[in-house]
């Protein structure tokens, strides 16, 4: 009982044919971020500060779909969103439609701490960012060559999905048989950018916090908001736990996934792992998603019903694990 615990994720729904070196890169990044969080926890930084710190690191690295390296909108631009919640008091902050703020999670934190509101979006959020003097960059900073290529494939795949005469090219790199390739949110898994990064922490005082950040769905309509900035869907933290979700945004919203983990713990008195399993099994209908969670008792858990989730977790008693597949 007790002790700190931390989990991080880099998105759920992974191409089974992801090249080995990409898998290694991902595991290194997750390990590095876990270690950053662990050091912070050992210096007694509160949970809310640790989750922000770790997600900043994930945003700054171009590997995952958040901050730099975000998926692109149908217009080829980046629109990022993020949310953060402090279980101690259930304060929260969220932002959407961010295009020039280097670290959206920190802006979400400022919304929580320095504004009278919980959620700011688009030009209003950017204006607030300027007033707060946060680091701003050109939208180009966030765009990577990889994602420009992915967007092109995504657009082609969308056309292909609706035109039966055209042979399905671009999917032959997918290991799953071409007759039934894996799809997430309408995209073949080879071009789907696992949405989101996140971190959940319980500190040595038993306080839980959660933070989630994303560039969103590849080829999304401009103005589309997913689950990541929505408290109760992609992010939630209360007295009992902290949760961050990833996967098909629309499925996570309908399933109010993050809140439901906490709700089954509160109202059905399930333990953390049971709550996570319950929600993944029962709240997703036909949707695909994953989540990470910590409890105020120092436990850590994760679950996903799709093909893989980039994740890592560690607890104070020395347990540490980084993984991608089941």
């Amino acid at each position, binding site marked *: 009982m007790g002790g700190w615990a931390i989990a991080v994720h880099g998105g759920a729904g992974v191409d089974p044919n992801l090249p080995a070196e990409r898998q290694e890169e991902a595991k290194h990044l997750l390990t590095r971020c876990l270690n950053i969080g662990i050091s912070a926890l050992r210096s007694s930084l509160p949970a809310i500060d640790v989750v922000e710190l770790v997600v900043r690191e994930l945003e700054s690295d171009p590997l995952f779909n958040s901050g730099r390296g975000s998926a692109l909108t149908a217009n080829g631009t980046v629109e990022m969103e993020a949310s953060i919640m402090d279980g101690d008091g259930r304060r929260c902050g969220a932002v959407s439609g961010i295009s020039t703020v280097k670290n959206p999670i920190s802006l979400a934190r400022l919304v929580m701490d320095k504004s009278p509101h919980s959620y700011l979006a*688009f030009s209003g959020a950017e204006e607030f960012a300027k007033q707060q003097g946060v680091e701003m960059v050109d939208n180009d900073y966030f765009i990577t060559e990889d994602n420009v290529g992915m967007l092109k494939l995504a657009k082609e795949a969308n056309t292909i999905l609706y035109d039966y005469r055209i042979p399905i090219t671009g999917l032959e790199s997918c290991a799953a048989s071409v007759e039934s390739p894996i799809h997430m949110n309408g995209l073949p898994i080879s071009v789907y950018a696992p949405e989101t990064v996140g971190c959940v922490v319980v500190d040595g005082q038993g306080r839980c916090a959660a933070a989630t950040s994303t560039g969103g769905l590849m080829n999304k309509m401009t103005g589309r908001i997913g689950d990541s900035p929505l408290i109760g*869907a992609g992010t939630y933290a209360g007295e009992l736990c902290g949760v961050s979700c990833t996967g098909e945004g629309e499925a996570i919203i*309908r399933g109010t996934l993050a*809140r439901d983990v906490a709700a089954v713990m509160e109202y059905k008195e399930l333990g953390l792992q049971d709550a996570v399993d319950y929600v993944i099994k029962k709240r997703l209908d036909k949707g695909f998603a994953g989540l990470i969670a910590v409890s105020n008792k120092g436990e850590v858990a994760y679950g996903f019903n799709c093909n893989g989730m980039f994740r890592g977790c560690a607890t104070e008693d020395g347990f540490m694990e980084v993984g991608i597949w089941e």
Partner: protein
Amino acid sequence: MGWAIALHGGAGDIPKDLPPELREPREACLRYCLKMGIDALKAQKSPLDVVELVVRELENNPYFNAGRGSVLTSNGIVEMEACIMDGITKNCGAVSGLTTVVNAISLARLVMEKTPHIYLAFEGAEAFAREQGVETIDSSHFVTPRNIERLKQAKEANKVQVDYNTRPIPKDDKPPAPSGDSQLGTVGCVAVDSYGHLATATSTGGLVNKMVGRIGDTPIIGAGTYANKLCAVSATGQGEAIIRATVARDVAALMEYKGLSLKEAADYVIEESAPRGTTGLIAVSATGEVTMPFNTTGMFRACATEDGHSELAIW
């Protein structure tokens, strides 16, 4: 069993001495909308259609904080948001940051039915509205003199509070804007038909003098709006409090996970989860029950059930 419907025009610190010229038009609108909703249910319209048409009517009425009559942002413009959810399928649609769309709730429904997404906001939502050919109008259409006055009072109250650190001086004995009826947020409707199908819809202009780009609880599934197979809920009040307490989802969660009845679940959320003075909600269950609890001074509300019960009240 049997159909049931409830609608609200906002919960908040509604003064008991609300003058007749402010009270009567709102009561009349609630009465009219209730009748519209009842007629639609009797004509076997789906609950999704019923909640949309009732909320459209509430949006069009300038006395409520949605559509025309929306409160103003700190820049003196409107930024409207809305959300709709179908209980059986849990399909939902939400919009935020609208400035020219006459009926935000209908755009939310189009997001649900015509896009692969759930939530569109600001320029992207306005562009979608144009693609869909929904009715748009110059944003000055939504602005009413009363809301211009409210904004002015809110700004002065903020200024006074900062300069003197005292309560602002009331004008003409009306309560100071920030704690008076400018707290009024939102309109909403929940309905269940005789087959137990549920739907909910909520729409709002948000908070007086809000920062540009501020999003409240209304478009956040699980906060201001939620429906599943057990119940349909629409909440109103202080957005930030409703988000933190995931009000609408919690009513359903308590029913599902703790086996509480609709009334018990709604009362629990209002009394225990949401801070006093911040929240009201309307809810119906699949078995035709209805409840409308609030922990604020008042909530403009009305409801009716198939067995002939009907109610319209403010406090």
